[in-house]
């Protein structure tokens, strides 16, 4: 995906402007996000990296509209999602979240899960949605598990069903909250490949939170390294390795140089969190 193709993708640009978020559980005001400004270009994979419990998920929840922000504003393609007069954004199919521990509805078959979005919005009839869902699941290598329940397929396959379910609504942005954290390292590499293939086909902006530095550099156009709590971008790394990328990238000298740069940048933050015994927020 060279720079030209990036311009071509018009939708899904997120502008985060001096956003603050203060939780106050039982009065002890906790500052999760402080004066965070970040611009994510349309059609870009932006990786958000930082120590555990530093407020990354809070940022994602604010964009998705799960809770409000205490200050600043967030725009999607220029249109305000949430700001001073409207602290809480409305969740919608233009910004779909893929959750860390998965949120496939266990009581619906995989096909019913994938077709859920359009049917709920009344865009497609059940049969039309099922047809489109079967097609998209086939593209993601999920033929044959349509009528199983999520509990019956491997965790790698569950992840893919969830991503396909998100894409069924042609969202402008995919918000991923450490989606591959629970997978063992080799299944993770399957998911990287699958995600890239889906990305090349759908040109959707991806806001991806992770702890895994190798994953961040391998997938991302840009990597935003966040400070410990309260989180704000400490350094933004341009990953100038051309797309489409594959595993040979992992051993290339450019990748190692970027890896070194990220590890040292993140290391101080991680050790601070490690010493302070930060319990995961």
């Amino acid at each position: 995906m060279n720079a030209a193709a990036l311009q071509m993708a018009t939708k899904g640009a997120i502008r985060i402007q001096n956003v603050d978020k203060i939780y106050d559980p039982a009065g002890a005001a906790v500052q999760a996000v402080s004066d965070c400004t970040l611009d994510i270009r349309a059609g870009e994979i932006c990786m958000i990296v930082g120590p555990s419990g530093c407020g990354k998920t809070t940022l994602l929840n604010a964009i998705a509209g799960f809770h409000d922000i205490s200050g600043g504003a967030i725009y999607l393609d220029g249109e305000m999602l949430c700001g001073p007069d409207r602290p809480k954004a409305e969740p919608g199919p233009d910004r779909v979240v893929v959750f860390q521990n998965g949120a496939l509805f266990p009581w619906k078959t995989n096909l019913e899960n994938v077709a859920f979005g359009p049917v709920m919005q009344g865009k497609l009839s059940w049969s039309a949605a099922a047809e489109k869902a079967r097609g998209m699941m086939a593209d993601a290598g999920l033929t044959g598990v349509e009528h199983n329940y999520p509990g019956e397929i491997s965790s790698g396959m569950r992840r893919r069903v969830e991503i396909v379910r998100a894409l069924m609504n042609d969202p402008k942005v995919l918000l991923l909250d450490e989606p591959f954290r629970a997978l063992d390292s080799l299944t993770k590499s399957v998911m990287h490949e699958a995600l890239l293939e889906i990305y090349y086909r759908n040109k959707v902006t991806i806001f991806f939170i992770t702890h895994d530095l190798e994953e961040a550099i391998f997938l991302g156009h840009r990597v935003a390294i966040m400070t410990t709590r309260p989180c704000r971008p400490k350094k933004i790394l341009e990953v100038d390795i051309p797309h489409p990328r594959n595993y040979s990238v992992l051993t290339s000298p450019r990748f190692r140089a970027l890896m070194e740069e990220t590890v040292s940048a993140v290391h101080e933050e991680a050790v601070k969190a490690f010493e302070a015994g930060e319990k995961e927020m």
Partner: protein
Amino acid sequence: MSAVAETLVRRPPKRGESFFKNQVVRAIISIAVFIAFWELASRLNWPWVGQAPAPSKVLDAWLPLLNDQGYWYSWYQSSRRVLSGFIAAMIIGIPLGLAMATSRVFHDITFPVFEILRPVPPLAWVPAAIIFWPTQELSIGFVIFLGAIYTIVLNVVGGARSIDVRYFQAARSMGSSSWDIFRRIILPGVLPSIIVGCEVGIGITWNVVVAAEMISGGGGAIQSSAGGGLGFFIWNSYIGFSYPLIVVGMISIGIAGWISSAVIRRLGLLVTPWLRVR
């Protein structure tokens, strides 16, 4: 840090419009509405709810009782019965549950018998208990004991079963004797379930003591008026047509039951500090 100060100001004021969102205020409102509705229904003599004596009448009946010896004596009677039956159920139930959980053979012998007796409601035992036990008190005590024993044993067995096998393996690797494992792994591991069992158990015993006392007062299986206690107090008020006292008795038992559960919950938290620090 000016950014933080500035944002604090903009946050919506705490007191102002969120007053009605505050949970306690809403609870007071809802209870007040309920009482008002009950008062109105009773005044206008509506069917069903209307037939129950109005809260005002209940209050008038209750106030003089507060310094009436007999009233507090019935509290004492009922609580004594509940406590004796309940403590007996704990003394027998907890070891029985632990034995079932630890020894497979003992479990396979006793648990099936336990399971076929469980569906029989405790109060169905009242006549049989009266025939068997020599005195009135023992019969009621036995039925209360039955009410609590099932819940306690089931919770103990369930609790012991849910202790992760890794804890046993780790303890044994570090050289624990089986008595040591029982004392320092099984007991603390089962404690939270014992407390849950007791909380539920005490609720059931109050149910049982009321019925047993009513049956004893109500000319049913238990003849003599050795009853006493809040159940008997309610039944007596019913026979004496003083309906407001029925409601007084009901609310008194409700309070007594609530206090005993709260006491057990408090004791439970005392005994399990690691759960408190969530």
